[in-house]
């Protein structure tokens, strides 16, 4: 295998809580992304997806402490804090934010905001920058003349397209998209996803898509990670995750997605995710798991390769343990 464009090694994030104590939001996430790969992060709200990708760009608030390494083509960009990560922002890793409605400054013209990082990173200026902004807008399906509009003059879908154009301003290698289609209606959602796929192919982008919407991951990503309580519980090819999940959480998550042609009732997963401000013992999912057995409450399962070629963190995959109970 070639060197991954982006590798994350044992990433941890803690937030200082105002009432004292810490919240261990991300607990040892590791992964490696190849150039041009489309990767998905799935999980319910509060599982640490967004925190993880914000950490990749060093964008967490000052109340967060981060441990672990983020390697961009082998270089640890978080090594020296702002100093080392700042030059890579937008030029190498760019982001489409959750709720792109507010990703634009309401008092500045859209084109000006798209051109801003070009100027900042000395990629293009003046007339050249304006021409490039126009091309980017056209590429995402917005007439170039609309560059002089203000964000409020755009519809929700257009703003999201513009946000994508803005993310591509400096031709990044990795594009992080955090819930890029929430708050959009289904038709627009599909268009935006098609656009993202097309752009990723055209620009050779490595796309990281964060969502709680499983069908979106299935549609866009070739590989995905399922996150629960701050860690990856299962990671592998999307197909395998869907057809042969090796973690009960993944299975239940898919079962909780309504199917138009299926008569089966939609299942919900009882209980709530564990609190992350205290040390967890055993498997974090055990209290909600329908197949928990003896070791689950005491021993924390590690992410290990399964026979299907992906990895899951579940004791059920250990034949010895299973036999013993």
């Amino acid at each position, binding site marked *: 295998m070639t060197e991954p464009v982006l590798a994350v090694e044992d990433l941890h994030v803690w937030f200082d809580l105002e009432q004292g104590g810490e919240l261990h939001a991300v607990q040892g996430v590791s992964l490696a992304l190849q150039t041009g790969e489309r990767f998905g992060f799935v999980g319910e709200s509060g599982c640490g997806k967004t925190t993880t990708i914000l950490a990749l760009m060093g964008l967490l608030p000052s109340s967060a402490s981060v441990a672990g390494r983020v390697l961009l083509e082998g270089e640890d960009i978080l090594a020296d804090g702002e100093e080392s990560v700042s030059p890579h922002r*937008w030029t190498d890793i760019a982001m489409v*934010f959750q709720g792109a409605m507010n990703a*634009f400054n*309401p*008092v500045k013209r859209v084109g000006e905001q798209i051109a*801003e990082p070009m100027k*900042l*990173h000395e990629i293009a200026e003046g007339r050249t920058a304006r021409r490039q902004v126009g091309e980017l807008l056209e590429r995402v399906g917005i007439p170039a003349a609309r560059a002089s509009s203000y964000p*409020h003059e755009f519809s929700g879908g257009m703003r999201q397209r513009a946000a994508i154009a803005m993310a591509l301003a400096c031709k990044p290698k990795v594009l992080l998209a955090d819930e890029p289609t929430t708050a959009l209606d289904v038709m627009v959602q599909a268009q935006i996803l098609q656009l993202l796929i097309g752009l990723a192919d055209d620009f050779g982008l490595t796309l990281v898509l964060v969502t709680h919407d499983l069908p979106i991951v299935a549609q866009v990503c070739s590989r995905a990670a399922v996150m629960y309580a701050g860690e990856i519980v299962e990671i592998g090819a999307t197909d395998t995750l869907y057809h042969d999940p090796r973690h009960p959480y993944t299975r239940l998550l898919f079962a909780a997605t309504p199917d138009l042609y299926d008569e089966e009732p939609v299942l919900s997963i009882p209980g709530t995710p564990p609190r992350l401000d205290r040390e967890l013992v055993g498997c974090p999912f055990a209290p909600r798991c329908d197949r928990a057995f003896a070791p689950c409450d005491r021993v924390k399962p590690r992410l290990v390769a399964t026979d299907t070629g992906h990895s899951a963190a579940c004791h059920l995959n250990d034949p010895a343990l299973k036999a013993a109970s």
Partner: protein
Amino acid sequence: MRGADYFLKRTLFALVTVFVAITLNFIIFRATPGDAVTGLRCQFCTVEFKDQLRAELGLDKSKWEQYVIYLQSLAEGDMGRSFVTREPVVDELIDPLLNTLPMIALGTAFSIVFGILSGVVAAWRRGTFLDWGNLSFSLLFYSLPTQWLGLMLLIVFAGTLPASGIADPFLAFTDPSWWDTFVDRLEHMILPAATIGIVLYGEYALIVRSSLMEALSEDYVLTARAKGLRNWAIVWRHAFRASLLPVATLIALSLGYLVAGAILVEAVFSYPGIGLVTYDAVTERDYPVLQGAFLILTLSVVFANYLADLLYFKLDPRVAE
């Protein structure tokens, strides 16, 4: 054209407000029990004399007629004559107004510059000692009663700076140069302007701080950080501009009330401005002057509002919709 409609609407609205203010101004003075003549007490103030006086002042006419006359003379710039000096009210008010405006301008300029500066620093360095100190001082200044602060400044600086009036009465005898007069005026202006400036400084610093902090928590600030912008560039280019919206409105509004607020300061420093004239008119029951002063005060508030609307339009592209 974007905004022509908005501009027209705001102008019309301001004009209607002015008209309402003028009418209220008329009603207030007629709604008080008795009239300008009732209170007269003198040896020869017989009932006949009072009636004659009423006829002379037009007070025997119906309220409606009085209102029409009032509007007509106002349109001609005639606000009547002062009871005390017998001079036209307009002449009585124009000089004090011209005395007040530069004093207020000085105080406001001080408070805007330093209020915004310290508000920005406080928001930028939120939670630090700098922020804490800034916040405490701003709150303290903001909560000080204007007249009390004026008195304290008077006590402390009475020896070093002129404590009352607008000019050194003896300067005229020394054949002063243009520069000397200017410096003298400025010195007399400093204490009242500082009083206004300090109180406003507290208010502005607090507003700028909270407004900027709110702007800094917006999503587009995160976008700006992700784009690689440095802290100061984010504060200056993104958050500050957006945070100016409420700040500009509040400053414009407070400017309007300032003309009225000058009453206390000018009374403390015996500064012959519009505030002192109002104060004297109240104590001497000089109704025409008081009415004129009221009109100026209301007009300045309306005008400041109008200005705020226009400024808001300039600052926020969303306003026209």
